[in-house]
């Protein structure tokens, strides 16, 4: 019995590996890079010219101005207070297309600076999408669209990964 169970788990390990291996490589590699998503994005985006630093007292007025011009900005307004990434005093917001089904690549990004009179100057910016692309890649196994059906495929791959892990441990320690 012992030997046959072990053979069974060797077969499980082999076939889950054959089916899921390539997809897991994509998910692991792209997922590991995604840990550095923000740093990668900052590194790959050219700096906005003539960006004036915004003072804390100006922020409430500017946010009111954003909401007046773009009521849909809603909860996606950011003000950077730490200087960890050299973006201290940066006021920005994004517009999310509700029909995009969490497809972050279609979001529109804006930055806010102060003009000469101290009024809010809203400009659309185009941050590098490489890090978002890598993030999406690891959620849809490299398939071309960021849609739920493809995320489900990654879910099945993750299920096979669990099988491969447990069967591998069983084979390695010969627990059965």
């Amino acid at each position, binding site marked *: *019995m012992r030997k*046959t*169970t072990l053979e069974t*788990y060797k077969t499980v390990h082999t076939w889950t590996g054959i089916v899921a291996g390539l997809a897991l490589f994509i998910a692991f590699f792209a997922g590991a890079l995604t840990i550095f998503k923000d740093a990668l994005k900052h590194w790959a985006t050219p700096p906005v010219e003539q960006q004036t630093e915004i003072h804390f007292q100006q922020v409430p007025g500017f946010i009111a101005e954003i909401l007046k011009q773009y009521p849909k900005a809603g909860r996606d307004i950011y003000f950077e207070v730490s200087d960890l990434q050299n973006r201290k005093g940066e006021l920005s917001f994004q517009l999310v297309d509700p029909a995009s089904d969490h497809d972050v690549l279609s979001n529109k990004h804006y930055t806010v600076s102060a003009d000469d009179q101290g009024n809010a100057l809203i400009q659309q910016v185009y941050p590098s999408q490489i890090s978002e692309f890598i993030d999406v890649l690891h959620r849809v196994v490299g398939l071309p669209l960021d849609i739920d059906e493809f995320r489900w495929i990654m879910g099945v791959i993750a299920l096979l990964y*669990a*099988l491969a*892990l*447990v*069967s591998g441990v069983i084979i390695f320690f010969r627990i059965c």
Partner: protein
Amino acid sequence: MDNQQFRSDWWLKSSAGLILGLILGFGLSGLFMLWGPEVITSVKVQFTMWLVAPVWLLVLAFVFMFRTGLQAWLWLGGANLVVFLVFFIVS
């Protein structure tokens, strides 16, 4: 039953793990919702939800230890029956 010969029964065992494992996951998460510690509701709900996947995957991973596919279906089916009976009686 104990001396029964080992059979691979790939389809029977895999389907038992996939189907009954998932149902058992639902059942056990239901029991956790009933008897789990009283913590903040959102934490408890999250834990209850995430409990399904590990139970399912562990059942699916260890289902191949059963000697035959029929045994897998009977044992897991029985476990499901017990869990759901307890759940519906208590709740």
